[in-house]
């Protein structure tokens, strides 16, 4: 304690605090840089951990799998019929066919009617002697998330269903589901299972979504997807099991769509790429491709879901091997007595066998959030007022705000909050009202670009805005205005801090992404509109970069040209081989000025925007709410600050009022 006293006395004597206060924006910057570089440290040796199976009961691949030999004949038999069904039957016909097959095997078949023209067939195998309280789900959507015909997946699933029925080892029920797609159809089934279906089989412990859009006998490697909405991930034990079993059967496992050529890479670059891609994917779950990879459909009901997507390529493994992977996963889950709880629910994967747990990666987003808190403090301590001499030590003795400007600041904040709420809700209403189909696609395109361009327009308005200052403002008026703006500035940044910290633990990726993208907001200053056009231009630029809609535009265009972080890594690692040109040419840039060529570029942002505004309705995803209420509110507040004309400097006046002794 005496030591602390001495330190505090020294700080006091040297007048460090006012000096430090002036440096607060730099601290914000420093913390943000630290936060981002924290992530770049994680893939270094010694910073990440090697995965392990935490729950002893799982025992992956401990039993010999018998899905082989003559089972292959049966897979082929079913596959021919599935392929024929794709050619000849519509969805109703396919569902009828599946009903007959499942019924023949001995499953209890039922149909979930989504609406008058779509239904989902599912079959339940009540485990003999089981207590009928828990179930494992195997899903084969008729169409994969790319819209391809999932012939291999469906045939394999029905063959596995038949194979499972003959085994007498099951302690949990098995449900096989054949939805039209792994997104909305499947979500509708999962929701109905927990609310309205008559035929159920207990609480679902795990779900595996199978996709293999090919009628080939062989496949190359397995792509594993695991991201659920709102930052929910399956228990790491299940992911580990799937990886362990796949590798045991000889498959290479690809996380985050890592291309085949990179599957053997085990270096810093590959781990970093997977890490960054997983953060991007996690923050975008439920938004892209009508709802992602199939795991999203199970989010929210405490179901551990993974999706396995087989990739065609060199004929190295036959399709029963893929079946054996599923069989072994089911047998592992079947072994469980307790629910999945031993291993991590919050983690980031760096490689199939490397991960970082929440305790290791969380500081990154914490640092960024603290940066915002410091920015808010800096705002309340008048650092953002350009009328003050910012190059000097803070000379203000008491950064007080009078009660009335304080209240007005709060009132304006709530007004802006209400505006962005109304905007957010009305967008959600639009998504609820008009489905995103061929009739409305053009309308949605217009809506998206109206929103995006209004963001751009507002940003530039900040530097072009005419001075609205009243010609005869009294000092009291000026002081009042300065205090209101100061309150609003601090409040907006503090609000964003609270939102980010609230999201931090449950949805790290979203918190981190918003934190990074909105960072320029922390540096927006205010001052007189009549001069300082350079500061105003900076403000405009900051507003433009940090606008949520610009991020959507950037992300959308990148996704529609087929940009992949792996390309960057490839270029960086193999620059001397001249791969750069080859890779860049792989991007789908428009080759001419033809409108049709450019249209798909515009569809990227539209898709993301539609995904955002409809994700809450479909998947109960909070992303739109976080963006709209948190990020956009703050953005609007700071936009309002940057266009307000403040000609009153707190420090100058205070010093004038109280001349030095």
């Amino acid at each position, binding site marked *: 304690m005496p030591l602390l006293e001495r330190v505090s*006395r020294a700080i006091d004597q040297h007048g460090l605090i006012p000096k430090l206060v002036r440096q607060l924006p730099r601290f914000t910057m420093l913390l943000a840089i630290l936060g981002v570089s924290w992530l770049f440290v994680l893939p270094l040796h010694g910073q990440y951990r090697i995965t392990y199976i935490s729950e002893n009961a799982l025992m992956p691949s401990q039993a010999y799998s018998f899905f082989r030999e*003559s089972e292959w004949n049966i897979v082929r*038999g079913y596959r021919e019929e599935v392929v024929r069904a794709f050619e000849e039957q519509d969805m109703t016909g396919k569902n009828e066919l599946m009903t007959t097959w499942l019924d023949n095997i001995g499953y209890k078949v039922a149909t979930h009617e989504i609406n008058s023209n779509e239904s989902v067939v599912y079959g339940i195998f009540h485990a003999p*002697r*089981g207590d009928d309280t828990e179930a494992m789900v195997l899903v084969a959507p008729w169409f994969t998330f790319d819209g391809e015909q999932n012939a291999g997946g469906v045939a394999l699933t029905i063959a596995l269903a038949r194979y499972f029925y003959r085994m007498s080892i099951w302690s949990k029920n098995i449900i096989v589901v054949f939805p039209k797609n792994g997104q909305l159809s499947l979500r509708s089934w999962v929701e109905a299972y927990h609310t309205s279906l008559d035929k159920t089989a207990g609480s679902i412990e795990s779900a595996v979504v199978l996709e293999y859009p090919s009628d080939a006998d062989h496949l190359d490697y397995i792509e594993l997807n695991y991201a659920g909405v709102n930052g929910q991930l399956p228990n790491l034990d299940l992911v580990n099991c799937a990886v362990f079993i796949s590798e045991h059967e000889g498959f290479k496992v690809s996380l985050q769509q890592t291309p085949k050529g990179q599957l053997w890479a085990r270096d810093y670059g590959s781990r970093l790429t997977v890490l960054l891609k997983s953060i991007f994917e996690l923050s975008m779950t439920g938004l892209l491709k009508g709802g992602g990879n199939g795991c999203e459909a199970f989010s929210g009901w405490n179901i551990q879901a993974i999706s396995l997507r087989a990739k065609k390529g060199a004929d190295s493994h036959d399709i029963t091997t893929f079946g054996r992977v599923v069989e072994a996963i089911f047998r592992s889950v079947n072994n469980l*007595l*307790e629910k999945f709880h031993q291993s991590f629910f919050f983690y980031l994967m760096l490689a199939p066998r490397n991960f970082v747990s929440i305790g290791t990666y969380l500081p990154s987003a914490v640092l960024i959030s603290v940066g915002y808190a410091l920015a808010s403090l800096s705002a309340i301590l008048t650092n953002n007022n350009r009328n003050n001499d910012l190059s000097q030590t803070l000379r203000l003795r008491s950064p007080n705000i009078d009660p009335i400007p304080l209240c007005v600041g709060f009132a304006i904040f709530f007004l802006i909050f209400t505006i962005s709420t109304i905007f957010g809700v009305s967008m959600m209403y639009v998504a609820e009202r008009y489905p995103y189909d061929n009739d409305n696609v053009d309308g949605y395109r217009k809506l998206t670009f109206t929103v995006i361009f209004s963001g751009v327009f507002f940003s530039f308005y900040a530097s072009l805005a005419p001075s609205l200052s009243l010609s005869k403002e009294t000092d009291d008026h000026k002081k009042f205005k300065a205090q209101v703006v100061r309150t609003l500035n601090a409040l907006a940044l503090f609000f964003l801090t609270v939102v980010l910290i609230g999201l931090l633990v449950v949805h790290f990726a979203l918190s981190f992404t918003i934190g990074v993208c909105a960072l320029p907001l922390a540096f927006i200053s205010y001052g007189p509109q009549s001069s300082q056009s350079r500061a105003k231009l900076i403000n405009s630029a900051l507003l433009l970069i940090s606008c949520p809609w610009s991020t959507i535009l950037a992300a959308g265009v990148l996704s529609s040209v087929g940009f992949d972080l792996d390309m960057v890594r490839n270029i960086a690692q193999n620059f001397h081989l001249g791969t750069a040109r080859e890779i860049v040419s792989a991007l789908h840039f428009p080759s001419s000025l033809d409108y049709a060529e450019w249209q798909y570029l515009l569809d990227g942002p539209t898709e993301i925007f539609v995904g955002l505004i409809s994700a809450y309705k479909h998947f109960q995803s909070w992303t739109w709410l976080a963006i709209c209420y948190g990020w956009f509110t703050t953005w609007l507040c700071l936009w309002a600050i940057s266009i307000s004309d403040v000609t009153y400097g707190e420090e100058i006046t205070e010093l004038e009022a109280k001349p030095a002794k």
Partner: protein
Amino acid sequence: MLLQSIWTLVLLACSVDATANTYPFKERLDLTPLPRNNLLASFNFELDSNDIQLYSDGDSISTHYTVFPRSFGPILKTTRARELHLRFSQGWWDSEVWGSLPRNGSTAGGTGVEIWSLIEADDKAQALESWVKLVNSLSGLFCASFNFIDESITTYPVKTLQPYSSFYQKVQPEKQLYLLRSALPREPICTENLTPFIKILPAKGKAGISSLLNGHKVFNSQWSSMSIDILTECDDSLICNYNLKQAIDVVLNVPKTIDRALNPIPKPTPGEELRCDQSKTHNVFQCFPLGEKTDMSWDLKTLFGTTINGGSSISSEPSKVCAHVNHEHWKVYAVTGTGDDEKFTVVDDCADLDVKSTTNFLFSTDESNNVVALNKPPVMTSRSLTGHSQDSGGFRTDFANISEDKDVDLVFFETLPWFVRIFLHTMDITITKPDKSTVTYSISDPLSETVLKQIYYSPAVDRKAPTHLELLLRIPAGCSVTLNYQFDKSMLLYAEYPPDANHGFEIDPAVISVIGEEGNEIYHFRTTTSLLTLPTPDFSMPYNVIILTSTVMSLAFGGIFNLLVKRVVTQEQADSLAKVSPLYRVSEKLGRVRTRIRQLLGRA
């Protein structure tokens, strides 16, 4: 003396055998093939005790029980249990394919163990005391966790599971009668539970139909249920005796059982044995599988691993084996003797077992799905948990009346552990008419009375009593009725979590009794168990909490202690105060000494 009495006993035993005395004991095995190559085997045993004295304490004629198990007598007597019903079940009864439950469900239980008893006692407290004594005694006898039954999971059924013994109907009891019931849905039923069942039979599984009861086969079934019902039966002159009925029902999937016996390792079917659909592409690489074989021939020996070891020699009537088959497509033979002496007899309905020789039964069919007409259960029911949060949830129970012209009255009996706090006001009833139109009534709506006739509700008391809910429902013809209600989950104390707490908590199967026209219960069945997730702590957490709390406490202590013993002063005050402190004076003195020394040295 001792030797003499043993000798007498031996003589007595020999004389029993020699004179072939018969005792009040009957046994009968019903074999009913079910669709999809399943077989329902129902073992029935019935035995009576000697006459007993209901209300005397002295040792009397009742100390000799003959075939009635000796272990039960004193327990029943001391606890004054007039009826005792035990159920051990596991598996899921597929009523769509297998029809209604054997004996109209009167002997089937829900998953796990269930027990109920009619106890005569002065008051409820005494009845509960006797009940606890009863279940504790049975716990050891049946290798089941009956000893975990206490007041917090015991209910007193009002409309369902009603007593039906002649004692209940004829005798005016001295004291009050109480019906108590409890269930342990978590109890795994295993071979150790079968052994006590075989042990209480006079032949102890050595002869008669009970020789088929091999634990490996019984528990390799699709569904199995074991039950014991002990009733006090009295005639008009009020002479009473105990009547014990034991039933063991198993549903075996014939191809699976045979496969398991012949081929214990589940290897893939050899290619040439695949049954392929000839109308589709089939070759050495490809095969579209056909459904199961329907021309079958199998015998009891393959299914149960053994033949029946002769009929029971002490039963009052010969042991019977009955086959309930559609004779157009099925042939049943009784095979007696072995080797060259093998003798085949065609069985039309029932066959009496020969006491001396082993008997096997051979079934053969050209169309195994063509079985005797199955009774459909009057109502199909399913119950599921709804909701997805950690702190609340709901139950949805669906009743479908498959009859097109007859309403069905039923009692829905549900008991929920105390940590499930149900809200009756959230209950609503949805009626789905045959044309798929639905109406929903809240329980407060008087229109709900068209379906919900009566409610008996006894709310839970924390750690003392479970929720007990009995609803008298009328399911209109052709309609299905869905019952929905919500509940909150309570927090448990740290020590109240069971082992493997993350498994979840099993909720008792609900009992459904269908009420006939005379107001009696004509069909019983249970829903499946439900698995409820409660917020479960990480059990290493308390230690983290202790460590954190201690740290915070010590920090707070330091701060408060400083505030109490220290004074806040300005810098100037601090400097001036420092000048009078002893330490300062000492250092000042030292400084002076030092300068003095320097001066001295300098001078030198």
